[in-house]
């Protein structure tokens, strides 16, 4: 659980995106693309889920990338090399189903870009032709461009302000791609509004669209139901039934609202801790 490396991938408007490697031999040995861990920074901390972005089996470490958005990620960002997490458990959730689909589009938005990295690598390795679309508000907050270029056959970028790549959203790029060619799978990770729009964009074409959800969790092992989402009219636990689901079947409105339950508590506790 010791942090063995740390670097700041990005800093924009006072918000950092941080990458750490953590000693976790047992997790590293078993982790597959698409899975996550649940961690605590201290005995008083919350349990939060984070996607496993990379694995180094020789060193027995896993890589986590997070944006310092809430209290726990901010506290996590304060830890340095040599510090230990209080708790770390995984690998949790189903792994991404990796096989040869053919032509695959992978869409990553914001810090979701980190989460698509291992999935893109695995898809490429399985012989898929991977087209990547990365989205960010502006050029300066784009992360991992070089790594993802290597993990894909072609890489397209959209920025809200047009400072890099195409001006607009990832879905604008996606729409153009789908109009020009047929694809076998679309895989998206990012903010909920982005994933919802990806689902909307692909609906007409009928292409299978998978998303990895970021529901709130406590234990992460199916014990509490905090992460329940409605998928195809049925209640699913994101932690053990997911985190990946068919984008067309997800009740996005419900997920958005459930993820906002503790927004006020979060603001309050961040203020109290001067974070």
């Amino acid at each position: 659980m010791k942090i063995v490396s740390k670097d700041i991938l990005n800093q924009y408007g006072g918000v950092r995106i941080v990458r750490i490697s953590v000693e976790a031999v047992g997790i590293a040995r078993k982790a597959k693309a698409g899975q996550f861990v649940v961690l605590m920074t201290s005995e008083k901390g919350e349990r939060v889920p984070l996607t496993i972005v990379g694995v180094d089996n020789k060193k027995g470490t896993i890589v986590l990338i997070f944006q310092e958005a809430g209290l726990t990620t901010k506290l996590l960002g304060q830890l340095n090399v040599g510090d230990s997490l209080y708790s770390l458990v995984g690998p949790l959730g189903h792994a991404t189903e990796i096989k040869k689909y053919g032509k695959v589009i992978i869409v990553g938005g914001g810090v979701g870009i980190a989460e698509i990295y291992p999935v893109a690598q695995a898809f490429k390795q399985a012989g898929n032709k991977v087209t990547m679309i990365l989205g960010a508000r502006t050029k300066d907050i784009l992360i991992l461009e070089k790594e993802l270029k290597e993990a894909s056959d072609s890489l397209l970028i959209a920025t809200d302000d047009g400072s890099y790549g195409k001006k607009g959203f990832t879905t604008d790029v996606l729409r153009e791609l789908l109009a020009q060619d047929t694809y076998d799978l679309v895989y998206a990770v990012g903010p909920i509004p982005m994933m919802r729009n990806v689902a909307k964009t692909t609906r007409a074409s009928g292409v299978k669209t998978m998303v990895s959800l970021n529901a709130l969790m406590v234990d992460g092992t199916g014990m509490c139901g905090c992460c329940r989402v409605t998928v195809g009219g049925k209640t699913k636990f994101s932690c053990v039934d997911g985190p990946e689901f068919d984008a067309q079947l997800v009740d996005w409105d419900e997920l958005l609202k459930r993820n906002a339950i503790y927004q006020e508590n979060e603001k309050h506790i961040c203020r109290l801790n001067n974070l």
Partner: protein
Amino acid sequence: MIKDPVKIKERSCQERSASFEEVVLGYGEEEALKEASRCIQCKNPTCISGCPVGIDIKKFIFHITKKDYAAAYATIREKNNFPSICGRVCPAEYQCRRKCVFTKKDEPFASERAINIHFLERFVGDFGKDNQLPVATHKDPVLSKLKVAVVGSGPAGLCAAGELARYGIKVDIFEALHKAGGVLQYGIPPFRLPRNILDFEIDYLKKLGVSIMPNVIIGRMQSLEELFKEGYAAIFLGLGAGTPSFLGVPGENLCNVYSANEFLTRVNLMSAYKFPEFHTPITIGKHMIVIGGGNTAMDAARVALRLQKMNNIPANTSIFYRRTETEMPARRLEIEHAKEEGVQFKLLVQPVKFSGDEKGNVKKLMCLQCKLGEPDASGRRRPVAVEGSDFEADCDVAIIAVGLNANTILTGVTPDLQLDKWGDIVVNQETMETSMKGVFAGGDIVGGEGTVIEAMGMAKKAARAITEYLKKL
């Protein structure tokens, strides 16, 4: 000539319902002596048949009357590894006390006059703990060379570990959460089971040589096969009944509708009642409704009420239950305590729908009135909804406490493990051995939800069988 039962000391309602301090304070020596003296030492005691682990109740009570508390302690520990825990959480009125000669045969639970066996057990258990009395071990030279893996650190896992360690077997317990104890840690609130009691029992196991590995999910980090490869000679699975059931009514996924497991885990395991000192939040409502009639429902309601009082919100917590109080599976003491503390009981009501506001927060609970019909498979009279009796209740936090299902995180990746139609593990009832050689199981993952002491009963049986199994290796 039956003397009146000795009342147990309790923290006053006013004091306790705004804190998580223990409610029942236990017997002092004098009270214990008086209560023990009520036991008529039946020639053929029936109480023992009501104990899932078969404690020699008559004998330990006799030792109390002779003030030989060490002997009483040894008598209990012979059969029960955790008297201080069981004396606090056992539903004695359905078990030993129901079989006490002072309870009439057809009563649904123990008569008030039945000997307060559980309070006496607690007195003795705490005496042993406070005086650090040793527990008999019987190290076996052959078994001492072996190691056994226990998966899950709840009542079943802790009990199995204790039994095995007493033979000198090296036991490693693997726990998914960051703290050991299972339901004793995340489920039962500290005002029923203070955590120093749990810590003591866990420390005691460590002294016996048991290692506890938190943050390890067997089935994810390691398979059962890999555990065998690592040199474990046998495995005990005490996985618990880990997945909450929901009602399946519309609106159940609105914000602030919790499973009792989530609500209690946030408060008990994560200390959300100390937010913001502890970082896990919890929503405290003005109209909190708990649905269900078991111990978990009582725990959730009493926690909810405390949260309101501790945060200067007028106490308004209700339990909604489909049947009447008689059919409630909860311990009678918990029902009484909940009422005393101010939890309201709305009986014979069936929730049909939650509705919320534009933010997705729950605001109302629609219900139907019920009446009792014919008995169902459980022998309890089935609630029948009365048509046209629907009504709406204010509800800004709802807690669903209607039972649990098997967690599949390990069983789902272990195809050799035979399961029944509920997903519970099938075992040989004599040995608790599963369909996999050398793998034994007990607790709620076998046969569904039960009590702490029933889980321990199964664990003891399994531990005995494991030692037999190991001797033949």
